[in-house]
């Protein structure tokens, strides 16, 4: 078997909408790219920017952050906070030399299994096109420390 590039993608999904969208995709037997592995958080607001940095540092080529649609958050409005963090994080990543296209935000309601599946496949191909992420481990470590809770990311 040939050794070729297969992106590894980590998906952070919220318990109420996007994790259920993934369940829904499964129940509907909707096929999508297998490169993604999901971590369940209670809310997209739980996403600590460090998780994303650690994922990239640990070998992920892409990270998906997914939650309920704006306005539909189970915790009222925490996904807006996730959204704010997401945009800042993308900016930070590009400052660190990581293509912002490796980080994706997806709103998916519990009913949107098809959308979830389609978007995961699309994202996988986008990341595949970007190629493997070779992040120098020391740079990764530095990044991790520098990002660790700057007030603007937290707010």
């Amino acid at each position, binding site marked *: *078997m040939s*050794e*070729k*590039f*297969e992106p*590894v993608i*980590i998906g952070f999904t919220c318990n*109420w909408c996007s994790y*259920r969208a*993934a*369940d829904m*995709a*499964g*129940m509907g*037997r*909707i*096929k*999508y*790219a*297998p*490169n993604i*592995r999901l*971590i*369940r*958080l*209670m*809310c997209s*607001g*739980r*996403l*600590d*920017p*460090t*998780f994303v940095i*650690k*994922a990239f540092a*640990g*070998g*992920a080529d892409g990270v998906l952050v997914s939650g*309920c649609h704006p*306005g*539909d958050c*189970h*915790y*009222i*409005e*925490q996904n807006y*906070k*996730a959204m704010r963090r997401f945009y800042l994080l993308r900016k930070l990543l590009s400052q660190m030399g990581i293509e912002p296209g490796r980080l994706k935000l997806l709103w998916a309601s*519990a*009913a*949107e299994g098809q959308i979830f*599946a389609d978007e995961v*496949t699309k994202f996988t191909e986008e990341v*595949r096109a970007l190629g493997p992420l070779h992040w120098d481990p020391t740079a990764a470590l530095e990044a991790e420390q520098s990002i660790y*809770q*700057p*007030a603007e990311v*937290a*707010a």
Partner: protein
Amino acid sequence: MSKEKIGVYICHCGSNIAGTVDVAEVSRWAGEALKDRGVVVSRDYKFMCSSLGQELIQKDIKEQGLTRVVVAACSPHLHEQTFRNACKEGGLNPYLCELVSIREQCSWIHPDKAVGTEKAKAIVSGGVEKVIWDEPLEPLRVPINPVTLVVGGGIAGIQAALEVANAGYPVIMVEREPSIGGHMAQFDKTFPTLDCSACILTPRMVEVGSHPNVKLFSYAEVTNVSGYVGNFQVTIKQKARSVNTDLCTGCGICQEKCPKKVIDPVFEAGLGYRKAVYTPFPQAVPKYPVIDRENCTYFLKGTCRACEKFCPTGAIDFTQEDEYFTFDVGQIILATGWDLFDARRIPQYGYGRLANVFTSLEFERLTNAAGPTGGKVVLRDGVTVPKSVAIVHCVGSRDQNYNPYCSAICCMQSLKFAHLVHERTGAEVYNFYLEMRTPAKGYEEFYQRVLEEGTHFIRGKVAEITDAARYPGEEGKLIVQAENTLIGKQMRVPVDMVILSAALEPRRDFKEVARLFGISCSEEGWLIERHPKLDPVATMTEGIYIAGCAQGPKDIPASVAQGAAAAARVIGKIQQKQITMEPIRASIDQEKCSGCRICNNMCPFNAITFIEDRMVSEVNPALCQGCGTCVAACPAGAISGTVFSDQAILAQLDGLLLNNLKTLDLTPA
């Protein structure tokens, strides 16, 4: 190297998982590769959730002294509770058990067995890493307030309210209209038995209105909801009725004397009139009228006051204002029902343009003995009895241009209409249908009966309805044009009257309602149940239930069944007196807290307060819902969350990043 003793269990789920994941291989791999992570036993089994599967785990806990358990099977949303309970019975703290999904997230979506097997390994590895960091926890227990709020007083809400009230618990019912009864109150006969709608509904309405355990707010709306299961706070807006209900006897003199007549768009479906002061119908519950301020001459012009003058008890009160009430309730049932599709959206059917095209709700009012024509089926001119009537199925349903779903009741409703037209007018009846959907007890039999009555059934979706005559004999008629698909010929059927069996749609304000109560709705706007088969009346939000057409189109028997089912769930909870809640909570390490207060405005539930004298923040565990946003936000890393701690998440991440994809070719063809 972990010091835990971990047991790993891989489920076949019959062929659901084993079909595309080599479960034996995953189990073998976990036992070997994860040995130094603490895995001491790894097994695969046909059905882990069966009692034998659960016993397997319990036996290992006892015999091998397991300190952690990982089950790789279906979604935690299905069986997390099952396996936690199994561990508990086996003597292990339930929160030391992780269920990871290799079915919904693996076997069902990846047809390639090699791919599925490798992904399953990564998922198991993530679960093992995470479980190491899990902590033993005790579920939180909070008392449950037995008061239940029912929103919507249609047949579904009425049934739910009566069940709860009859079980001895207090109910608050909120209905937007001046009277409860919902759509069923508008009908004359109900299929398939042709029971008189009012005869079976009115006693229930009266029972609600006079029940000692029911507090009824009509002409009212819920404007705010806060809190959580067992302990919600709701605000109810009582719109000003302009009638003092303490004095009013419901004599109806005000309605009689009121000179202002307006079209009633709600109860009469726009086909009849009411007064500016009105109860929608004589059997209304409550019996007190309301003054429609948008139409009352006094409110518009400052004169009239006829109602006030004639009211024998002095109950009219023009100065009343909207009132707000706040209640604590434990659980909530939403039974807000449906709205009728606006048939004007299909211009080729001519509704609103061609006088004798009626909607189904209009026709219900036409046949109703208490309706605008006293039950006579006549044309829009109010006198002419139609000699031929076309009934059009699937108007706005099963159509990508409008609503893709089947409205479920309109085939039966159309058959009911065919029968009523025959019975009342003897007219020729043409039913234009697509498929005849009669899937419930007694329904097909009703279809047989209508067939025998000589109704013409034409299979084909109506293309257009026009008054433009093309051939002699069409003049002055409505012409229904369609293909009779069974013979493959285009037909033009001239008739006097057309009835459009319009779709049932979600309430127009579904978005606001879903948001207000914090639950989800489908793309179309139907409220979403927790599980489409196994939990059809609960929602994702603990303590909030749905019943009737708010959940999706259905007939009266199904609406009643759901109302009762939701009530049973509510009563079950109340009887437990306490609600156990997942102990997913944030807590602040006061040593680490720098007092920056960033977390304070992070929490939408106001669970975090700043302690001024100690200059640190604190979480109130009763208010915290465990979203974790504050955990992620604290720059000092002072906040930690249970179940999903930083360490546990990062460990799971580590496990998931298992490097095993490189040998597979996953590039899409």
